[in-house]
């Protein structure tokens, strides 16, 4: 109670200074050039509540602002100072951090609607966006749901029903059995009819849960058993269906837009084949794979499906496309997709604006012939996760430094976080969607390289190393991709950028030049007469640089801001501004422009550079220090990361893990209260919990063992 009250006081005080901070808000982010006109006189809603958080909430608010619509944000208590809350005109707290108590809490959100008088709700994606119950409750209160009608959500939300409707609408569907499979033996019989391989999946499923691939009768029986168990536990619905498994397919989806008057359009495709664990990583529009005929065929089928379910609003029809350009209906997403910006980039339509207009009952402004493919757009999903572990295990932390590459042209960043934000365990670890645009695919890809190099993210582990590698990989560049791209290209897991000999030299030379620049600056004292003048200009440095246990002797000479570094008889010219305070290090290396980032620079010569997306640890020492270093003893680092001890005497408030749980690095393990303060104890590494030695309510002393990890 006390905490709540004092927090309220804090809020009040913050309010007093809020005026100042509102003015510098980042709503002016460069959105790709929408061709749509915002007509403020066109009557839509006065006030919209956005039942979501993070980047999509911010995305919706931006369009609302352009349309002159007031916005209401909802937030959990840990999100009270989140960006979407600051951007909205009003904000309502809907509960504590866990999503089922806040963003999924329909009662609280309905109350927020009443309290603020919002006339419509935009659900974003995820959370309540495809929840027919929510749509019903809104309808009952006379509040518009900015999305399709309940029956469309329901029809498309069920895999069996949606497939039947699709078939009826003459949409290509995957050969399979269009009904609920009763038992394992029936499954085997059906599988035999379809022909192996087959996919057994939960009717209510999604996200890869309850899915099994079977190549023979035996695997079918087994898959049936596992899938029905998984389906029952995950969705409370063990109905299964069987269909042909399309090996090595592409995932291509069609964006559709339909109004309440029976008009529907297809807004071209998005190629979303680059995935890991069924989650998309890099998307692009258009696809390199589709020819105009296939595109039209897919688009027309998508539109006929939308019409068949009387769809209104923006929606996405997902297809699997095999190597012969046969396409099969997969499912329809009855919401705004995460990757919608790339469609906006190539068509010029603001999809959120269109959704709002449609919800208001307006007819579509465009005809199919008005929908262009202008240029090429690529989207990289920037996640707070460690790409070196299964292409991405979540990481959490505070964004100690954060800078989006917004000063570059044709770059759009959709994000809902800012410097100082916490990436917490409660929500999706997506940092942002980085979108680049170009007249050609090549141009968009080049821009993506540049944007990734200029993106500053400190404080959490992120997947930029992986994104940067994907977009320059020859297979990706040539368009030769499938949903198996990552496991095929990196069969032993992602290992970061592999340096060529030339790149290695560039990296070594940069570290050496940076070292010298820092050394020279540390000799510059302003206005101090007691400093003896070091004739630095003319000096030649002999340095020893260590990278991956390899030692390199380097000669460095300097003229102004230009450094010439000699490595094994080869010369590398490095020049730049050498601003040692900046997170970015824009350099010219042998005439080529490169942006590196210096992640760490210590007095003992350690330098960590982010180069071509991957961070490399180097150590730069003078020749003298390097030669003396050989006398230094080898040290084996003590591993304390697997043992968590109480850092202070106190009482255990909560234990968030149990033996056998997998925890991410930085994830909360337990909470210790001391002096009425709650201290969150976190895992020092990602691991499985071996044993737990405390329970809530225990009193612990300093140094007491709390939890052991494996």
């Amino acid at each position, binding site marked *: *109670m*006390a*905490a709540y*009250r*004092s927090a*309220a*006081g*804090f809020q009040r*005080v*913050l309010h007093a*200074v809020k005026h100042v*901070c509102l003015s*510098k808000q980042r709503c002016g982010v460069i959105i790709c050039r929408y061709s749509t006109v915002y007509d403020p006189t066109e009557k839509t809603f006065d006030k919209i509540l956005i039942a979501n958080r993070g980047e999509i909430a911010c995305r919706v608010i931006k369009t609302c602002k352009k349309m002159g619509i007031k916005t209401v944000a909802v937030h959990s*208590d*840990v999100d*009270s*100072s989140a960006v979407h809350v600051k951007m909205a005109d009003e904000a309502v707290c809907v509960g504590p951090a866990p999503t089922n108590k806040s963003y999924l809490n329909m009662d609280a959100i309905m109350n927020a609607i009443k309290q603020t008088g919002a006339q419509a709700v935009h659900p974003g994606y995820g959370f309540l966006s495809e929840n027919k119950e929510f749509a019903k409750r809104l309808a009952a209160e006379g509040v518009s749901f900015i999305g399709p009608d309940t029956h469309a959500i329901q029809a498309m939300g069920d895999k069996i029903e949606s497939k039947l409707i699709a078939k009826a609408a003459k949409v290509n569907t995957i050969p399979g059995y269009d009904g609920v499979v009763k038992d394992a033996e029936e499954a085997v019989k059906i599988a035999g009819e379809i022909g192996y391989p087959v996919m057994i999946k939960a009717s209510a499923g999604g996200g890869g849960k309850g899915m099994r691939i079977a190549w023979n009768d035996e695997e079918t029986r087994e898959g049936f058993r596992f899938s029905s168990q998984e389906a029952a536990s995950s969705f409370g619905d063990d109905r299964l269906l069987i269909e042909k498994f399309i090996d090595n397919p592409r995932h291509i989806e069609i964006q559709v837009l339909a109004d309440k008057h029976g008009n529907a359009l297809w807004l071209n495709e998005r190629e979303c084949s680059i995935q890991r664990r069924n989650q998309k990583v890099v998307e692009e529009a258009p696809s390199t794979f589709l020819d105009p005929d296939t595109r039209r065929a897919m688009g027309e089928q998508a539109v006929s499906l939308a019409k068949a379910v009387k769809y209104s609003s923006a929606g996405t029809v997902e297809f699997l496309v095999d190597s012969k350009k046969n396409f099969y209906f997969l499912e329809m997403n009855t919401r705004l997709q995460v990757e919608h910006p790339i469609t906006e980039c190539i068509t010029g339509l603001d999809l959120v604006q269109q959704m709002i207009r449609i919800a208001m009952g307006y007819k579509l402004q465009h005809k199919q012939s008005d929908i262009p493919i202008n240029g090429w757009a690529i989207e990289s999903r920037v996640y707070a996760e460690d790409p070196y572990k299964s292409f991405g295990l979540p990481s959490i932390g*505070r*964004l*100690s*430094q*954060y800078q989006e590459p917004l000063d570059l042209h044709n770059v759009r960043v959709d994000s809902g976080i*800012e*410097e*100082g*934000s916490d990436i917490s365990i409660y929500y999706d670890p997506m940092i942002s969607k980085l979108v680049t645009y170009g007249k050609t695919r090549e141009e968009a890809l080049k821009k993506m390289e540049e944007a990734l190099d200029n993106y500053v993210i400190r404080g959490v582990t992120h997947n930029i190393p992986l994104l940067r590698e994907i977009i320059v990989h020859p297979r990706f560049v040539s368009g030769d991709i499938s949903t198996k791209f990552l496991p095929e290209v990196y069969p032993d897991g992602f290992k970061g950028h592999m340096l060529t000999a030339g790149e290695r030299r560039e990296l070594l030379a940069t570290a050496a030049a940076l070292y010298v620049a820092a050394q020279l*600056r*540390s000799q*510059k*004292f*302003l206005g*101090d007469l*007691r*400093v*003896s*003048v*070091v004739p630095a200009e003319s000096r030649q440095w002999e340095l020893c640089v260590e990278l991956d246990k390899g030692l390199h002797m380097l000669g460095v000479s300097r003229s102004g801001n230009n450094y010439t570094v000699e490595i094994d008889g080869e010369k590398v010219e490095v020049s730049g501004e050498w*601003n*040692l*305070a*900046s997170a970015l290090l824009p350099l010219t290396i042998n005439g080529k422009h490169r942006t590196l980032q210096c992640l760490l620079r210590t*007095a*003992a*010569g350690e330098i960590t550079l982010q180069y071509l997306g991957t961070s490399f640890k180097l150590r730069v*020492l003078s020749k*003298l*220090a390097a030669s*003396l270093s050989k*006398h*230094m*003893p080898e*040290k084996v680092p003590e591993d304390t990361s697997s043992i968590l001890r109480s*850092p*202070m005497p106190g009482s255990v408030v909560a234990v968030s893990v149990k033996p056998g749980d997998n925890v991410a690095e930085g994830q909360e393990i337990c909470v210790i209260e*001391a*002096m*009425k*303060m*709650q*201290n969150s104890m976190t895992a020092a590494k990602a691991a499985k919990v071996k044993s737990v030695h405390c329970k809530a309510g225990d009193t612990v002393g300093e140094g007491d063992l709390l939890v052991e990890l494996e």
Partner: protein
Amino acid sequence: MATYTLMRSSLGLLHGLKCSFKSVGQIPYGAAAGAVTQVKGLQNARGYSVNHPSVQERIEKKRQAALTGGGQLRIAAQHKRGKLTARERLELLLDPDSFVEYDMFVEHRCSDFGMEADHNKYPGDSVVTGQGRINGRLVYVFSQDFTVFGGSLSGAHAQKICKIMDQAMMVGAPVIGLNDSGGARIQEGVESLAGYADIFLRNVMSSGVVPQISLIMGPCAGGAVYSPALTDFTFMVKDTSYLFITGPDVVKSVTNEDVSQEELGGAKTHTTVSGVAHRAFENDVDALLNLRDFFNFLPLSNKDPAPVTECHDPRDRLVPGLDTVVPFESTKAYDMLDIVHGIVDEREFFEIMPNYAKNIVVGFARMNGRTVGIVGNQPKVASGCLDINSSVKGARFVRFCDAFNIPIITFVDVPGFLPGTAQEYGGIIRHGAKLLYAFAEATVPKITVITRKAYGGAYDVMSSKHLRGDVNYAWPSAEVAVMGAKGAVQIIFRGKENQAEAEAEYVEKFANPFPAAVRGFVDDIIQPSTTRKRICRDLEVLASKKQTNPWKKHANIPL
């Protein structure tokens, strides 16, 4: 007692060395007394001959001898232990070619136990002294040479150190001591003890006049430990350095405790448990390179201003992350270092005692290039309360800054002093008074930022307006009050029915920065993201601050 211990411990330390020399038939091994008698052969070989070497040749020979210290074998043994030699250390610490050596020809004057023998004399004896430059700035240095008599301290050794200390004081330049010594030169007896005392006296006289830094790079035991203890900063090298009054053997015989050298006086012990050392580094190279970096923060003397280096970090940089760093719930912890790193130049913070009394954070940083001392409560550890150790840690740091013209920036989030018998019996009253005393007497520019809690007496202590804080800011999340709501309500509204309502009233009234702001106890309530900009501007204004305390012989801090 002390001497006895010294001998024992140095014997132990020298043991490895002794063996290796025995095998090759070499003789002298310094402080380890008792084996000097066998050597007679060479003693008479010298004397006047017709063609004795010229003075020039003798100079050369002596210089050469001084440069090789205890000889190649001992140098090799030193390296084998993972340690550098006295001269290698200086070469790494100082700018290239800047070292000017003093007293290369000084030899010890002991004539007992055969020490007068020529082969027992080493030009320069067991310490290398002189002056040099670190990034162009003057520094006096001594580096004890473990290869000569185990680095033991003779009268001559002490005299060499005293000479550079005297000169450092005269010209106003810091003294850095690289300690690697087995202890007193037992053969010299009281002369060695006198030498220690001469150094101690100079440590005390120099205190507050020039910065003094000790880097412990080997053994340092017995009385010898008091020289580092008197200096401003003591750094250690992990695994190869030890500091203790009496070694493990004596401890065992007196208290019957079994303890290893490392546990008793290693770097980990002193940086985490005892608070004797201020930082520990991985190895000699790492330590010396870090020392160079650290030196750049310090003024040369108490007459010199805090140094200003070239700075690339904009002075008016906004720090948006600070607006959300303090959590919504006032009981939830956050990391004060996030605030410090965000505000200071280039996120560079040289933390002092990072692993001791972690509920307070102290260290050096720069604001717009100028050195500042940072003091901050650490809500992440023990809620950032003040206790005995954190008070003493903070007080010593504040006094160093004040002595050497380094402005102090204080970040306050303190729920009070830590209650309990352990603290009361330990004397939290007099130890807590030290921090209060230090802040109150400091006349350097003092800027204070209350980030959240400033409760009770701890509020007064933490560089409050009342202790002559020059600029005191509160963030909107600040709560300046006698205590937290719950405790206060139990006293004010004792027995009253509706405690929750009473608490709400208290929170409304006191759990915010207004009560302090309306009284002028904080100068302004500021948007956190503007903190850096304001501090840089204030420091510029305060650069010409002049404030003096009343004349006194010296003050009487509650020790």
